[in-house]
């Protein structure tokens, strides 16, 4: 069966997250450099570098996105969040020159997702960040489309390796549409074993061998 019966909750993409999406949960686990603007009493044990009881105001620490988002308030000074390098001006220039040369998996792998999420935090650079990720997407789109449409039976792993998560999902969507058509064209549209069943069997074999 080509159609998978298991359809996971898709990620929200952009500024909204989907509550149940595994992708979004992992995305919101990405760590951001933060500076605290208030003291957090009794949580000192979370900071390995200090042995005080509190985390004092002014501490620089990395926080997962979900926590920074939860604590951040526009009106009150609780913490400031620094833009990760890949969204700062230096990299923005690189993306502006040629978005195709960048290994977004290494820089991400949630380049678009995290970039969009950064817009939740006030920063004068936000408009440029939003523009850059949009232009990067547009600039890389052609290559993703072309390779996903020519990939039948050919090795695309080198290209896919450099794609961010969102791009990979697009690549797979393009490929499955094309593969389904080509299978039909070649007349291979017969009944097949479920992929899930096959993968289970592979795993069972692997377990037996190890």
């Amino acid at each position, binding site marked *: 069966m080509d159609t998978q019966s298991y359809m996971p909750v898709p990620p929200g*993409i952009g500024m909204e997250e989907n*509550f149940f999406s595994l992708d979004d949960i992992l995305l919101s686990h990405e760590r951001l450099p933060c500076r605290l603007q208030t003291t957090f009493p009794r949580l000192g044990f979370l900071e390995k570098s200090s042995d005080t009881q509190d985390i004092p105001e002014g501490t620089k620490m990395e926080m997962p996105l979900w926590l920074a988002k939860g604590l951040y308030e526009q009106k009150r000074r609780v913490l400031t969040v620094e833009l990760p390098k890949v969204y700062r001006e230096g990299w923005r220039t690189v993306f502006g020159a040629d978005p195709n040369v960048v290994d977004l998996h290494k820089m991400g792998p949630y380049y678009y997702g995290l970039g*969009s999420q950064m817009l939740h935090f006030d920063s004068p650079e936000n408009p440029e960040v939003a523009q850059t990720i949009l232009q990067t*997407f547009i600039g890389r789109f*052609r290559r993703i489309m072309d390779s996903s449409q020519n990939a039948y039976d050919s090795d695309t792993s080198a290209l896919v390796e450099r794609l961010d998560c969102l791009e990979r999902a697009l690549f797979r*969507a393009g490929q499955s*549409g*094309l593969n389904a058509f080509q299978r039909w064209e070649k*007349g291979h*549209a017969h009944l097949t074993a479920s992929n899930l069943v096959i993968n289970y069997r592979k795993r069972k074999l692997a377990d037996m061998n190890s």
Partner: protein
Amino acid sequence: MDPSEVEFLAEKEMVQIIPNFSLDKVYLIGGDLGPFNPGLPVQVPVWLALNLKQRQKCRIVPPEWMDVQKLEEIREQERREETFTPIPSPYYMELTKLLLNHAADNIPKADEIRTLVKDIWDTRIAKLRLSIDSFISHQEAHAKLDNLTLMEINTTRSFLLDSLNSMYKLRSNTQPGSAAEKTMDY
């Protein structure tokens, strides 16, 4: 949609056959069929035509457009024009495959027709890709899909929709206040 489902829809198209048996009119929910008389042409749905053909009960008359000269014209026009040209059958790809696979002996120059249809398909798909790309790079908001067939749309549907959706979301980012207003913190 799976391509086999698109093919299934194509099997409802009518085609002319010349039966070699006789049978009174058959009344079915989907419409009446027949009557069938040896040597007398009659219109039937493709699924029935193929079934009868497989049992050597009829000869299939290829649709008018399934002709080398006509297809060459279409191919040239398709290559010349930037937009999608009107195609004589909304199921040209499916019907070509079905009829050529099961009734090639009833279709003159079957191999040439196969190649021509494939050329037309390839030209149109290349065009489709080109227009998707320019659609994305110009950040268009809507597109006309005139003259595209179901099978053509179907091969690119999920890719196109996911791409447009992503672009829409990333574009909303650049317009603060639109989507940014009400978001939940988890």
